């Protein structure tokens, strides 16, 4: 596979939402709302404690379709309503040790009543086992697909 540019460890994801910037920003900063969307399909967040202000903590437990818990901590660096949020996230292994640290910058731009959101992720550090985290998640996804297959066939 060709590598597009030198910043291969940077992941940028963008999306336009048919909602006002205030509403979209709130969905990123209100724990009750974040709890309902954070994480891949079929994942839930039994724990979602976020304190969206500079220095505020993030503590999220994502739960995969197979029941596996993926704990994650983080810290808000910048919260500029309703334009920008900067935070770090650190997924933890089953012994509570950090696997990798990502700095995420989210920008909100309003265009003709819609809101364009850009999520820019930069890996700050990674430890041995960093790839196991996402592999485990993918296992969770494929297991749910297996179950779907059982239901359909």
């Amino acid at each position, binding site marked *: 596979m060709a*590598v597009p540019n030198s910043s*291969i460890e940077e992941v940028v*994801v963008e999306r336009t939402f048919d909602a006002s910037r205030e509403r979209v920003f709130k*969905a990123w900063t209100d724990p009750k709302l974040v709890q309902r969307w954070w*994480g*891949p399909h079929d994942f839930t967040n039994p724990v979602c404690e976020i304190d969206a202000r500079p220095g505020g903590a993030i503590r999220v437990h994502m739960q995969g379709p197979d029941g596996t818990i993926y704990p994650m901590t983080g810290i808000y660096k910048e919260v500029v309503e309703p334009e920008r949020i900067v935070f770090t996230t650190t997924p933890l292994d089953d012994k509570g040790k950090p696997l990798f640290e990502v700095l995420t910058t989210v920008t909100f731009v309003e265009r003709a009543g819609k809101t364009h959101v850009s*999520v820019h992720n930069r*890996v700050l550090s990674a430890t041995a086992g*960093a*790839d196991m985290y996402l592999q485990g998640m993918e296992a969770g996804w494929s297991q749910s697909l297996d179950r779907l297959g059982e239901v359909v066939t």
Partner: protein
Amino acid sequence: MVVDTLSTAFAALSDPTRRMILDRLMRGPATVNELAKPHKMTQQAVSKHVAYLERARLVAKKRRGREHLCSLRPSAIRQVADWANAYRCYWEESLERLDHLLREDGEKASRRGRTK
């Protein structure tokens, strides 16, 4: 070991000069001298960065006469790219769920608005 390659690769990628060296090598192999030119750095300084990239298995160095020819090692780079792709999926799916949430809540709000 697979897992260790990924973490050393990320550490190697955390430096802007090393990212620029990789960027140059993506266009083809180059000598240390050629890599040093655009950076206004000494050959020794660039050699140190190249050595770091070698340890992370992102770059291979071969002797060519009196010089060293550097080239990319695709396997470690592919691992980083695979990781980035998986992480991208994680965010793409999260944003899709956010989109659904905003639509649902938006519809509820407009229904409430109409009944009032």
